[in-house]
């Protein structure tokens, strides 16, 4: 395979595989947050900040994959 072909494949695989785990994690966080809200709607203020923080931590992993994919593709 040529280098350019390999590059395209590698960047697609990097973001494709790298997005699986963060997606699962984000779904789990969201579902748990909704569950908590359903059980205790008054707690929405206390849930909000930790929710955003954990979403950010999880999403960061996906972003790393994206950055790696972009670097493979363009640098």
């Amino acid at each position, binding site marked *: 395979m040529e280098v350019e072909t390999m590059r395209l494949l590698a960047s697609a695989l990097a973001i494709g595989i790298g997005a699986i785990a963060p997606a699962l994690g984000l779904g789990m966080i969201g579902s748990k947050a909704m569950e908590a809200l359903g059980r205790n709607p008054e707690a929405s203020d206390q849930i909000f900040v930790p929710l955003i923080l954990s979403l*950010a931590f999880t*999403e960061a992993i996906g972003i790393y994959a994206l950055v790696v994919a972009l670097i493979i593709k363009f640098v």
Partner: protein
Amino acid sequence: MSKLLSPKVLVPTLVLIAGLVIINVVFTVPGVVLPEISIAAEPVFEFDLFGFWPDGITNTLLSSWLTTAILVVAVLAITRKVEEIPGRWQGALEMIIEGMYNLVEGAAGRKWARRFFPIVMTIFLFVITASWLGLTPLFGSWGALHHAEHGQPVEWLNDSHSVGLWVPAEEGVEAEAHAAEEDTHTAGGEVYALAPMFRAATTDLNVTIALAIVSVVMTQYFGLSALGLGYLTKFINVGGFVKAFTEKGIGCVGRIAAFGMGVIDFFIGIVELFSEIGKVVSFSFRLFGNIFAGEVLLGVMAFLIPYLISLPFYGLELFVGFVQALVFMMLSVAFFIVATTSHGEEGH
């Protein structure tokens, strides 16, 4: 949402879009081209003041100056005459500041919130303004064209300094296709790439690393000012060894066990040291990746289906800009809190 779909808003929007499409059909404007995606910021000016900017001034530097200017001017104009009963603008500013302050106070407590707030609010305002500025017109779409040749120095076209995304597109795209065919970038006509005059400041890794370093250094500062030199034992932890040799009445076996725990504590301290570096990396790449990916997404979507399809993504990018600013701020606060709370002597 219902307001958005009311005829008052919907009709002008649809008329505008229809107008754009008709103009496109009638005058055969050469369509939207796929924007040149470059991770590094492009230099747009040759301006070397005392050797500060040997590579010229980049577009992200320009827009970060613009961001700062907007913030300073807006705040100065609003607070020029502060009234007891706030007017419209003062009320809005007070609402933002107060809401954010309550958020920080809820997390950090009254005493520390007063010290954390200025730095984290500044970061928040800078990040959100920079990210949202990148969504305004002219950003990323107006700039200088240069010949796109890989590995070649940028060559300026002086006469076409103000062309947008839809420039010698036909020529460029054709030439690009042609070039791809022959596997060389100089074959056929000329290939152009656009170096935008402005580009959102947070799409430059330098900016986000700078912000991250500020945040992490302030973490150490707050830790030191809260715990004194005791803060450093978080990183260089020899307390376990001292305890192993000086504690009375634990016997020989107890002493060896305590020494083992001391070794573990010592290595945990080293891990903490590296996690401070990891914080810089994760802070900067999270912000950069989100905003940069957003810009690429908008460009690619506008290329695939012009005009219509990028509208919902604009909404998404507005939300992402806000959330990333909030995340940067709240993570900083969380790290500040961890640094200022003592964790030396309580049992693990």
